[in-house]
């Protein structure tokens, strides 16, 4: 991230999320937050710490461990004119609310011919890297991106952690926001004054001419680190932060492909039937003749995430694997 001189401020990703919540609660009386342990406990990842004291129990609502009921209640409250923000502890737990998310949030607007839009924001932690094993470490954002009717966002940078929530709340549609647990402690410069962000566009986080890296969330920083290494060897990677996984920003993705002619997709999800597969196919459909090499991808090993660090690390995309895949891609003769 480039720092702009003057007003920039150094904060963590977690603090950026909290500031965004605070701003949303302050700006709109229809906004309220609910989820497991968001109030007294301060959030299982401490994102919502101190909000209960600031906004009170009516708007910072601790829920029972009833994912289906409180996610469904968020959907119902949205139908009733409010702007709920629902927090689910991890995306693994969101599977307990899958009925409400897929059968209600994603369908009601369409089934009612537009009478029942569902302006709810559902935030959840995603991703691995903290040795939390196979029921707290998965990345289901690509899975949710399969569902028409949902909008899927994955803020990676401090600025997006701070700015995407407001954009999600402006949307009349259900927005699922995936916050990678590996990013929560990341510190960075928040560009100030804040500029309004959207949830429609991918962003080029590093410009380059030799290959395009498509990524999002925590994998973005593995790509940026790999790109720095590659630059030392004279390979300039363009790093695209997808930001929004549904709908995908085909325009910016293809623009980058047309500049570099080589594509490496880095996704912490599994490859089979996943987001990387969708991205690759879209590029084949829309920019096949621009490609100078087969599309490559670095994804998570097709296993439930294991507990021990050496196995977890081996399962996940790493900077080394990204560098290695990028070198092979650039070496491929067109």
């Amino acid at each position: 991230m480039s720092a702009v001189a003057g007003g920039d401020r150094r904060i963590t990703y977690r603090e950026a999320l909290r500031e965004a919540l605070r701003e949303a609660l302050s700006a709109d009386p229809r906004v309220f937050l609910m989820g497991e342990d968001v109030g007294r406990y301060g959030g299982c990842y401490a994102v919502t710490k101190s909000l209960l004291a600031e906004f009170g129990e009516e708007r910072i609502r601790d829920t029972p461990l009833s994912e289906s009921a409180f996610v469904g209640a968020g959907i119902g409250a949205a139908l009733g004119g409010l702007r709920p923000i629902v927090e689910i502890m991890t995306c693994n737990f969101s599977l307990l609310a899958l009925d409400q998310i897929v059968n209600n949030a994603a369908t009601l607007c369409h089934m009612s011919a537009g009478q029942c839009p569902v302006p709810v924001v559902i935030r959840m932690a995603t991703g691995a890297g903290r040795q939390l094993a196979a029921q707290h470490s998965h990345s289901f954002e690509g899975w949710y991106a399969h569902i028409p009717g949902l909008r899927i966002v994955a803020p990676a940078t401090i600025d997006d952690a701070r700015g995407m929530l407001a954009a999600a709340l402006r949307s009349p549609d259900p927005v699922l926001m995936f916050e990678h647990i590996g990013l929560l402690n990341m510190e960075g410069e928040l560009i100030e004054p804040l500029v309004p962000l959207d949830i429609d566009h991918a962003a080029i986080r590093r410009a380059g001419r030799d290959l395009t890296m498509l990524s999002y969330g925590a994998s973005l920083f593995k790509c940026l680190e790999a790109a720095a290494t590659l630059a030392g060897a004279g390979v300039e990677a363009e790093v695209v932060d997808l930001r929004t996984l549904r709908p995908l920003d085909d325009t910016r993705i293809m623009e980058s492909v047309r500049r570099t002619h080589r594509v490496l997709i880095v996704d912490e999800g599994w490859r089979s039937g996943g987001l990387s597969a969708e991205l690759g196919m879209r590029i084949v459909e829309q920019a096949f003749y621009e490609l100078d090499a087969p599309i490559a991808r670095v994804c998570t090993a097709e296993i439930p995430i294991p507990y021990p660090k050496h196995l977890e690390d081996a399962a996940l995309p790493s900077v080394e694997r990204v560098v290695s895949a990028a070198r092979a891609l650039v070496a491929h003769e067109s």
Partner: protein
Amino acid sequence: MTDAAETPDVTREQALQLLGGMLRIRQFEDRCAQLYTELKIRGFLHLYNGEEAVAVGVMQALAPQDAIVATYREHGHALARGVPMNALMAEMFGKRTGASGGRGGSMHVFDTARRFFGGNAIVGGGLPLAVGLALAEKLGRRNGIAACFFGEGAVAEGEFHESLNLAALWRLPVLFICENNLYAMGTALARSEANTDVSAKAASYGMTALPVDGMDVLAVAAATRAAVGAIRGGGGPRLLECRTYRLRAHSMFDAQLYRDKAEVEEWRKRGPLITFTTRCKAAGLITEEDFQRLEKAADGEVEAAVAFAERSEWEPLDALERFVYAEHAT
């Protein structure tokens, strides 16, 4: 429960209105069954025949600001709530003039102008929505309540238990209406629940829950009025267990192998239309001529609705992808 021999405690006008309301549903659905065999209505068609007293009894006790969440067997709820019959029939046909623009069909009727938030075809899936609609009323300092219909089959779903607990915990204005017709599709309550007492389960979450004779429109109406009064007064959620019976098949693909014909015939004698008509006639509130007139009026409305649906246009193909996302800011 109201004693069937007792003189009904209603005026002639009220009796005509309740009977007329039930007749509209009955005649509408009988025609739908016919239209189904003619392939005008497709998909699943779940008829409410035998349960009309529940929808009519409940709806007359609700106010315009109240929100309704119904099931996939919701034609009766929609009509009783005031969804125009033309829009309902056009929806059955899948026409663009339908209540849901034809996209929902029989199981997904929406009419937000009447705060009718859909037929939900996931058993138990509507309960959390009703909790949220009630939460919006409470946080918005409004006095509406959310009325949520579901069958006794939903009691086996986790969403029933999660939703009742959450509504009671937060003292939300929800009226849960369990239409206990004894069979979840073909599975009898006693074959799926270790404890078949629905009201007792609801009461265990700390809310008043009462069984009511769901075949008696006056009993349902009286119980609903009392429950709604308590809920609107800030007393938290309540549950009514309306004990009723589905006199026709679950859907149009049901050979009814799971129940005896004799059982159906026994319940038919307790049908909400026949018992209410008999009582009102015995009390001199209405005459056979009144009944004939109401039936004829309902038939006329149904035929007009069929004609409306027939002449309505299909949604153009270029609208295929509309409404997946909202077309306006909210």
